[in-house]
């Protein structure tokens, strides 16, 4: 399986270094909830998914 390297990504999109999330990279627009003040929300979602995964196991 071939995985692209940094150079190949930059050849595809020279503005890559200005983008801040994979979502933004993929969709060509700013991603929501992408800043440090939302970390409480992010962690709550993470804990909920973790619990859901543990319950399924």
């Amino acid at each position, binding site marked *: 399986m071939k995985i692209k390297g940094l150079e190949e990504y930059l050849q595809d999109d020279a503005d890559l270094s200005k983008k801040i*999330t*994979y979502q933004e990279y993929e969709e060509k627009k700013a991603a929501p909830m992408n800043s440090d003040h939302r*970390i409480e929300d992010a962690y709550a*979602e993470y804990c909920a*998914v973790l619990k859901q*995964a543990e319950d399924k196991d």
Partner: protein
Amino acid sequence: MTREFFDMIYDNDILPFIQTVDHNNSLLDIKDMDQCKSDIYDRYCKLRKVYKDQIFDKTDEALLDRHKVASCICAAFLQVSVFNKQRMVQRIKETKVAVHSYFFYANELVALYAANRFLSFFMVMDYRGNFELQRDILEKFPLMPPSFKSKKGFWTSVLFNLASIKDEDVIGQEHFDIYAYAIIFFMLEIYYIEKRNLQLASA
């Protein structure tokens, strides 16, 4: 992020990793965790402010994106070592036997892990509604170095670079690439998603 909130994440998500590393190498000594936790949080807050002042106007309310947050977390952990490596280093000097990069760069490894763990919280939130992907992120992220003794290769270079930054004590100054490391964390996220997409396509 309040101190209490950081403490909770540290206890639940970072400390178990530190303990795992410690349990696998009897020559590493964990420092006072309460003191480390407190110091790391202080450094994180300071680094965020320094960095925001560097890249934004001081009156700007702009917030750092998650890869820069991860980079600041990484830097804070680099500034406050959680392991004392003195006994391990002494043993290496006496026996001339190399240890796994995992252990030789134990403090840098923890910094890398902590930064990636913080990043993974945001990744999980991004994919709300896609439980399979969220679960995959829980299982596979943080992307971490494999166990090896080689002094070559990507991961050793990353750990070596982090160690150099740490030793030069220039974190938060012009030489510390918080921005460059933010890009590295961004690339790790892309690498993970692309790899997963390729695996799904070939399944």
